[in-house]
């Protein structure tokens, strides 16, 4: 189970943003993506997660291996912390949510409605979802937004544990997570030429 990206070109709204990107992640490895706003990190992660097609190149991650977490956490304000987490656990065929609650220090908040949580607490709940997916490849887009230093440490611990169990993590972030074993990739040099067009955003409907 590797995550192999070969010569990938991706586009957003018909404009290519990254081209010629290749890397290979083995079990236990983590890759941190860096690059200025608009450099295509989110598009790259969405493409790898399978939410949009790539323009060229290949993504080889095996079937149903990727857990994706984006800017929004997919939480329902009117469901409690436990209900939210249990829902995702059941969708991914798991039944034990206790380790996820403990890992992100949510035990005391179990019965609170997600709508009444603070932004950082919501984020922690969103990240706890990763643990209940049981999937080996984590694809994370800005996972530390609105987290305080202690919560970032919790998150770094969870990633380290995940890597220790043979998992893979691909993380786009601007801050230093303190995960020393991770390699860093700056996507800047892979920026695509802005004048090349690969089709328009409406082509799916034509």
């Amino acid at each position, binding site marked *: 189970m590797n995550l192999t990206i070969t010569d990938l070109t991706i586009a957003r709204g018909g404009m290519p943003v990254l081209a010629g990107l290749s890397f290979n992640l083995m079990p236990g490895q983590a890759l941190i993506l860096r690059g200025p706003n608009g450099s295509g990190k989110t598009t790259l992660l969405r493409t790898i997660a399978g939410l949009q097609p790539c323009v060229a190149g290949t993504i080889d991650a095996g079937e149903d291996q*990727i857990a*994706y*977490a984006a800017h*929004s956490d*997919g939480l*329902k304000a009117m*469901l409690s912390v436990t209900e939210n987490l249990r829902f995702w656990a059941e*969708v991914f065929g798991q039944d034990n949510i206790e380790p996820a609650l403990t890992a992100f220090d949510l035990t005391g908040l179990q019965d609170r409605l997600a709508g009444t949580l603070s932004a950082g607490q919501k984020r922690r709940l969103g990240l706890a979802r990763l643990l209940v997916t049981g999937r080996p490849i984590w694809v994370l887009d800005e996972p530390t937004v609105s987290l305080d230093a202690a919560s970032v440490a919790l998150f770094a611990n969870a990633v380290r544990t995940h890597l220790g169990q043979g998992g893979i993590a691909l993380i786009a972030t601007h801050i230093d997570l303190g995960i020393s074993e991770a390699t860093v990739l700056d996507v800047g040099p892979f920026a695509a030429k802005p004048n090349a067009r690969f089709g328009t955003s409406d082509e799916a409907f034509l």
Partner: protein
Amino acid sequence: MKALLIRDLRLGVRAGGGLGLGLAFFLIVVVLVPFAVGSNTDLLSRIAPGVLWIGALLACLLSLDRILALDFEDGTLDLLATAPLPLEAALSVKALAHWITTGLPLVLAAPVLGVLMNLPPQGFLWLVVSLFLGTPALSVIGTFGAALTVGIKRGGLLLSLLVLPLYVPTLIFGAEAARRGAIGADVGTPMLLMAAITAGAIALMPFASAAALRINLR
């Protein structure tokens, strides 16, 4: 699948859920009609099946954008699309949840409102049967409309325009079956045609919805 259904039903009955919305609208429309057209009981019983069907259809339409818009806004759809559950199955479940929270209450409320419309006694059974067989088609077709318009801010108008023409066959045959039931005529042909539309919609629409949603999530 069960988890998604239970979650959607739970959200439907909690505060801010859509459970009461369609039902309240249906009630208001049907209660207001006798005030508007006068108390001529012959006239009322003649238009009763049609008014009840239009009321149910519009009530259904009202709650369509809730099927997917809320899940789109909070990112749930992105996460569901990467989950092991096929999108076709997820959308079928969401249509089913919509039917249970909107269509089914309408079916159950219809006989009560039929009394207000002076519906003839022999018409009640066929009214309920026609709504029971017809409203699932409204939910699955509506889910397709919701999937087409999900990325559009305040796409309610577009959704209504797209979905209403697709609702017409169900309305024609459903109301015709209910009308024939009310006057004691044979309901077989319109009822069967409507059931066929429902069966076809349930079988095909989830695939169309999933295809439209995949494009909209890009």
